[in-house]
């Protein structure tokens, strides 16, 4: 909601009026609070805390994977259905470092030694996915700009090729990825704390939340405060005028595509350590969450993507606890519900 509209709107009156204004102006926060409250009354508080933290962790990882896809779509109107393959690619690249190259360091129990393996693993995942993203954009996507139907077709084809190449390089079987010692285990909340005293919070999930928040913060900062960010936002709105000002939008897009692929790879590598086992098709499965997230948030919106990811993470964990069989259905049900309420998603930035 823009400032202009706020001026024109009458100030909400009364509790009900203020509630309605909150619901309409901040649908993402409204939905988040609603979901957390409903869940809170359906389970005991300690379980709720654990599930909320886990949901946030999953949301943070899904956000990493989804942010690139939503920006690519917003900026260039390109729908990349091969995005899931980059998630898998990152997972396998990260696993290669952890399991084969730096396994000695990953196998020790000291934090420093573990970090010496984990950080290069994440970096390698980032680099491999980014590099393949660069090639993919030039070879597969560039020839079909502006044609949605062909984009869908070639990216589905490209996804098959990438998945098959993963099979060729890493073999067709699942690969176990043991999480380094220092990242396993949990923090115990001191018993003296009210309500949640004694709750065990898994370390790795906390780390995922922190990393996700850090990336979100960094992305928001880049997009809000740097010239590149201004250019990206301007490009989402009107590509032609960006070119009229003398900027090569294709180069900007290539950059965003590579960054998005790299982040998908990072998310994949994080997911690999979270699940401790990877398959080439893990990307396809995660793609569903990614798609739900970008539709929920509104195509092209980073903020929407973040809140969408958190919502998806939370509903997955809450419903997964209450009725494990319905977790996937609830995720998609959330999307259907939001689409009925707001066909453009929670925080739309572009018209679709």
């Amino acid at each position, binding site marked *: 909601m823009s400032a*202009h509209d706020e001026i024109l709107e009458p100030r909400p009156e009364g509790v009900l009026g203020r509630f309605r204004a909150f619901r309409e102006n901040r649908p993402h926060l409204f939905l988040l609070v609603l979901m957390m409250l409903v869940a809170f009354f359906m389970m005991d508080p300690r379980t709720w805390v654990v599930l909320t933290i886990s949901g946030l962790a999953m949301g943070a990882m899904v956000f990493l994977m989804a942010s690139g896809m939503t920006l690519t779509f917003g900026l260039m109107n390109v729908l990349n259905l091969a995005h899931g393959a980059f998630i898998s690619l990152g997972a396998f690249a990260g696993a290669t470092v952890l399991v084969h190259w730096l396994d000695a360091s990953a196998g020790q129990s000291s934090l420093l030694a573990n970090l010496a393996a984990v950080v290069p693993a994440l970096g390698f995942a980032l680099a491999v996915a980014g590099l393949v993203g660069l090639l993919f954009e030039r070879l597969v996507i560039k020839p079909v700009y502006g044609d949605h139907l062909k984009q869908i077709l070639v990216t589905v084809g490209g996804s098959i090729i990438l998945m098959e190449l993963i099979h060729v390089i890493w073999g067709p079987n699942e690969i176990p990825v043991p999480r380094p010692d220092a990242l396993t285990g949990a923090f115990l909340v001191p018993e003296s704390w009210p309500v949640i005293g004694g709750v065990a919070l898994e370390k790795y999930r906390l780390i995922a939340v922190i990393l996700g928040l850090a990336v979100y913060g960094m992305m928001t900062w880049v997009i809000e405060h740097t010239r590149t960010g201004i250019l990206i*936002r*301007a490009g*989402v709105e009107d590509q032609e005028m960006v070119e009229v000002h003398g900027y090569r939008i294709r180069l900007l897009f290539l950059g965003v595509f590579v960054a998005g692929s790299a982040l998908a790879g990072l998310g994949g590598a994080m997911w690999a350590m979270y699940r401790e086992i990877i398959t080439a098709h893990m990307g396809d499965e995660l793609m569903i969450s990614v798609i739900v997230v970008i539709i929920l948030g509104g195509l092209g919106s980073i903020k929407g993507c973040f809140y969408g990811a958190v919502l998806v993470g939370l509903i997955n964990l809450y419903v997964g606890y209450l009725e494990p069989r319905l977790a996937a259905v609830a995720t998609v049900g959330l999307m259907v519900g939001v689409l009925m309420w707001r066909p453009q998603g929670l925080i739309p930035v572009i018209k679709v």
Partner: protein
Amino acid sequence: MSDPILSLTGVRADIDQYHILHGVDLRVPKGELTVLLGRNGAGKSTTLRTIMGLTTVTGGQVRFRGEDITGQPTPRIARQGIAFVPENMGIFSLLTVRENMVLAAVSGPMDEQRLTWIFELFPPLKKFWNRPAGNLSGGQKQMLAIARAVIEPRELLLVDEPTKGLAPAIINDLAGAFEQLKEQQVSILLVEQNFNFSRRLGQSVAVMNDGGVVYAGQMAELADNEDLQHELLGLGLGAHQ
């Protein structure tokens, strides 16, 4: 007459299967304000877009400062010092006024002196500096569009119908701004339907009809010759209003 800063010879352009321009010949003299007149659909806007590289040229040549720029990509044409204000103004409405200006200053941070000068020309821009540009009124948006075009020194401005849909008082403000730009010897190619506005500002003039230039000369000549106005524009405004 000195060498023109911009010249078009036999320029042809198509949009989809329609031939819009069939051989446009046009000279924009350096340091002058040239007005491009003509009926709706004569091809004025397409001519500007073609110069900018936004429409594909299918024949002929566009020369800027004597160099051939035909068929170059838009960003490269822009970087050589041509600014373009399209008919819809092309404001980024989700960006703030400041961000719109930051974007327009291609080569780096904005020049303080020029910014002060722009604020003097268009005071509303200073007032709404950190507001979303989408909230500006039509006239303020036009001010922002022109401000973006002049935040850096440019050799040539292409402006498409700046007065469209604006109140007379604001048109007057805009005319003042264009006069200052003329004093600074900026070359301008202005598409205009408003003949009074054009006559006040224009030094040379070209009239388009059906995808080609049918008249080119000095504005003073056209302004004094009512028969010619009738013939070219289908309207007479009187020679001495």
